[in-house]
């Protein structure tokens, strides 16, 4: 178990290191001069330009040798200093991002967990029910092939505009202020439902297909055949098959995280849902480079943490990793 963990942690540490390095490298070695672009934009406001210019001299430290710049970048990072947002001047990037993160959590965690659970259940049932298999399989392939934002657009158009049931923009009505009351919570959930549903549906298709294929594979395996020959009840065999088929699905969840995050970004843009995705769109439109870089690091850190959580779950579920026999995820 220690070997499994130390290996994983080494990979995460290297990934984080690489991500920060990319974050530092790209602005400096890309063609064009982002500092100039930023200054010329900010020059619209005199006081902003002055602060920014002094900030750049400090942050980029362009007169310093490269290795010194790189070390300073890390130092600033550990002080939580991601720079200052330009389009929300003078808010620090870290505060802008921190305001957006709760919305991402609120959207992503239920969508990921529920779609994973529901997809696995339906996939497992489909593997042994002919009529369900014939409907779930094609539907699943269509759903996984659908771009997240397109399903979001279709749902917003059909349920929001044509039928007028759900709101299609924001996390709560513009008339309300965030506070703790039933009206507000109901409003929040009402706005949350469509983005959640579109994320849920696209992911659901992938999990259902994956589970169906794994169950069929497991039911063909030697241990299933052996149990069958012993006269074990079908229920028991399927239970074992399900538990074995779960493991690749857990690994699959870790592998899919990047794609899921990308999908969530796009979905938030469609619904103007104030998470990181919507922030990135605004940052791109306003050429707010510090904000883009901050969002990049936050996404990486979030994915790394989620990966770590999945590793712990994997250890809890798969005894082989606990006993030091490296399981398949290692």
């Amino acid at each position, binding site marked *: 178990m220690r070997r499994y963990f130390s290996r994983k942690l080494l990979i995460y540490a290297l990934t984080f290191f690489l991500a920060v390095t990319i*974050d530092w490298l790209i602005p400096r070695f*890309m063609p064009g001069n982002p500092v100039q672009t930023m200054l010329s934009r900010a020059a619209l406001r005199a006081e902003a330009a002055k602060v920014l210019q002094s900030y750049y001299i400090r942050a980029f430290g362009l007169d310093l040798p490269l290795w010194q710049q790189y070390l300073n970048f890390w130092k600033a990072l550990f002080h939580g200093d991601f720079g200052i947002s330009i389009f929300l001047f003078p808010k620090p990037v870290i505060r802008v991002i921190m305001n957006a993160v709760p919305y991402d959590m609120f959207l992503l965690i239920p969508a990921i967990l529920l779609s994973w659970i529901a997809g696995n259940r339906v996939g497992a049932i489909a593997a042994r029910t002919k009529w369900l298999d014939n409907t779930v399989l094609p539907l699943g*392939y269509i759903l996984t092939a659908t*771009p997240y*934002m397109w399903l979001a657009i*279709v749902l917003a158009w059909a349920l929001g*505009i044509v039928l007028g049931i759900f709101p299609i923009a924001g996390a709560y009505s513009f008339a309300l202020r965030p506070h703790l009351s039933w009206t507000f919570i109901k409003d929040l959930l009402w706005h949350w439902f469509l983005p959640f549903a579109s994320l849920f549906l696209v992911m659901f298709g992938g999990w259902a297909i994956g589970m169906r294929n794994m169950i069929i594979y497991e039911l063909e395996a030697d241990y299933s055949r052996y149990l069958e020959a012993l006269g074990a009840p079908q229920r028991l065999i399927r239970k074992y098959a399900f538990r074995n088929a779960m493991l690749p699905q857990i690994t699959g969840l870790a592998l899919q995280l*990047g794609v899921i995050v990308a999908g969530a970004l796009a979905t938030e843009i469609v619904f103007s849902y104030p998470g990181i995705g919507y922030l990135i769109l605004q940052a791109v439109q306003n050429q707010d480079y510090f904000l883009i870089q901050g969002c990049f690091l936050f*996404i990486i850190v979030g994915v*790394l943490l989620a990966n770590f959580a999945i590793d712990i779950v994997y250890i809890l579920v798969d005894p082989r990793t606990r006993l030091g026999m490296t399981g398949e995820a290692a």
Partner: protein
Amino acid sequence: MTGLIRSETLYFALRNNKLRVGLAVLIFFVILTFVGPLFTDYSPTDYVGPPAHPPSPEHWFGTTTFGQDVYTQFVHGLRATFLVGIIGGGLGTLIGVLVGFIAGYRGGIVDEILNMLTNIVLIIPTLAVLIIIAAYLTVRGILMESIFIGCTAWPWAARAIRAQTFSLRAREFVDLARMSGMKPLKIIFTEIAPNMMSYLFMTFILQFGGAILNAATLDFIGLGPTRGMSLGLMMNNAVLWAALQLGMWWWLIPPGAAIAAIVGALYVTNVGLDEVFNPKLREM
């Protein structure tokens, strides 16, 4: 002998419904990509008609808020989609194959290093890297976008091919080749690769679909090609210029529907091919 095998594969391929449906959809869109632009006299960004007009005989898919022809944008966008798929998916497959072969065949320290690299790139969310690269490029083309997508999408392919190579390397015919003094590269390409050709082809199909979806998301965020038209960019424009609020379904629906149909057809084709190449799955 090979002729016999080939005709047998073809026999099963022609009788596989998944493969037939998938290929039919794909061929339809490929033809549309080549023939579609012939039916329009406009360029995708020209202002040619009345703004926000629903589909009509003059403008088959209607017009945008600015009076651009949606059909023209659609067929030009299809071309960009297939280009990204071929270049991005091809590059992703190529890198994945090379890394997978080398890691799987050499083993030892080379494998350790390549495997570590694969795992790292696997964790980093592809789109996050693409966003930060694209944000700093002031001029972006479809070719550049495809190359970046290919360079970040290879890890799962490398991992799968490495595992396959690992198991093939231990077979007798590879040992025999090694004993006869064949060079490692030659063994990989004449002994190992032909035995997993079908697998490599299916990897390419999945990479193709993945590249299309990645490009669509990137374009949708507004970091796609700065010139030209793509299906993701159409969706980006539609959402930004309030096509949703105005109920302009003819602008919102086609681009994403085409992506879903193409990628879905690729996935179904892949499953069909799997059944054709793998006799165990045929009865299902």
